[in-house]
């Protein structure tokens, strides 16, 4: 059904559709309407709303995938990085001795070529790995350089007074980058658990982790939009797998939001 003019109801539907908030059946029906009913009124409204919704992605900190994604994609569409073939332009015939020599040479060159190919593949894999690592390091560095990032220091308490930690909190992006040092690793049946401590209500599970042999850990995590105002971050030791609420008041790390 084509609509002749925009109503508040139609506008609301377009806005909710673009935000991805329509319920499943409403979404299916509206998608069908846009695709099949040739309704210029709703198409224009949905288009403008979608452009606004999509623009939210511009605020996300940009991420870089590994180079292998592009290689796999191009291979999927039939574009491959074929290794250069070695051409043997033997056209003359020098008798059995020459043929035998050529055969030996061919085997040697093929082996050499095969070895080179494996080496190239290995190097390509290494390059992709390094590219990925560099991308991750660049994004971590950008967090530290971002004026919007604030720092929350975590102090060791209880059985781990020597432990220290730091949270780099990018509020606009709702991200925590957490770094912990001098916190001894816990055995396999236990885990460290980081908690969001809201200004009101119970602590909320943020992340479980263990430290390495040096007592260090580094990870990033999202701050859920519904978490509200935070007054602190805390780390406790919990049973493996973590807990929905702290089972102890013995904090190993604690930091308050100033």
């Amino acid at each position, binding site marked *: 059904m084509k609509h002749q003019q925009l109503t508040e109801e139609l506008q609301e539907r377009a806005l909710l559709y673009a935000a*991805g908030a329509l319920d499943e059946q409403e979404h299916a029906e509206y998608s069908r309407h846009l695709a099949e009913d040739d309704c210029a009124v709703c198409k224009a409204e949905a288009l403008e709303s979608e452009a606004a919704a999509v623009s939210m992605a511009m605020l996300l900190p940009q991420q870089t995938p590994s180079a292998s994604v592009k290689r796999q994609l191009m291979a999927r569409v039939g574009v491959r990085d074929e290794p250069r073939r070695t051409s043997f332009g033997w056209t003359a015939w020098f008798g059995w001795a020459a043929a035998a020599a050529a055969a030996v040479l061919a085997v040697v060159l093929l082996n050499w070529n095969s070895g080179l190919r494996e080496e190239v593949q290995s190097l390509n894999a290494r390059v992709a790995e390094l590219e990925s690592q560099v991308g991750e390091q660049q994004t971590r560095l950008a967090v530290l350089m*971002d004026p919007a990032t604030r720092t929350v220091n975590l102090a060791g308490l209880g059985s781990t007074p020597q432990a220290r930690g730091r949270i780099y909190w990018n509020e606009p992006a709702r991200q925590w980058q957490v770094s912990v040092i001098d916190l001894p690793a816990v055995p396999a049946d236990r885990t460290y658990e980081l908690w969001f401590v809201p200004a009101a209500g119970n602590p909320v599970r943020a992340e479980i982790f263990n430290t390495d042999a040096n007592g260090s850990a580094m990870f990033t995590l999202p701050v859920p939009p519904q978490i509200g105002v935070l007054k602190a971050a805390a780390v406790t030791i919990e049973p493996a797998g973590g807990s929905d609420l702290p089972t102890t008041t013995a904090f190993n790390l604690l930091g308050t939001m100033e």
Partner: protein
Amino acid sequence: MAAKDSGALEAFYDRYHRLAFTMVLRIVRIRQDAEDVLSDVFWQAWQQASRYDASRGKPIAWLLTIARTRAIDAVRSGSRRATDTEFDNTTAVQPAERGNDPFVLAGLQRAVRQCLEKLAEPQRVALEMAYFEGMSQTEIAKALNQPLGTMKDRIRSGMMHLRKCLKPYEAPL
């Protein structure tokens, strides 16, 4: 791309892969899973390029819509979504977004940021839960223990604000 020119696909990928990956990783949260989805996103774009209708928006908006849909499908179909995230932070606009002037992009980014910052917190939360978490208005209302009408109004008014605020920039994407 509609003519099945792989060079066009490569150029399209080079230009938009970071933005699409950013969107996918925000939703899927696991880098490896996000890379799998990203590959499927561009594959779908390649397959459906002939059906792309320029009157329905710019290519990047079309691509990001595919990216969002596939990422949410991946999460709903049971792909692992970790409690931790591999979504790293940077607010820098990457100069490697070839074809887009980084200064223009940075300006647009500032505009979008300012528009979003003017949103009331409840509106922004509702919008983010819908758009990036793939939750419907009913699910959001339930999660936040709010009446459905209230939630619908928050999303509607939030989106309307964004539209009006971004109007001078003629839909950056």
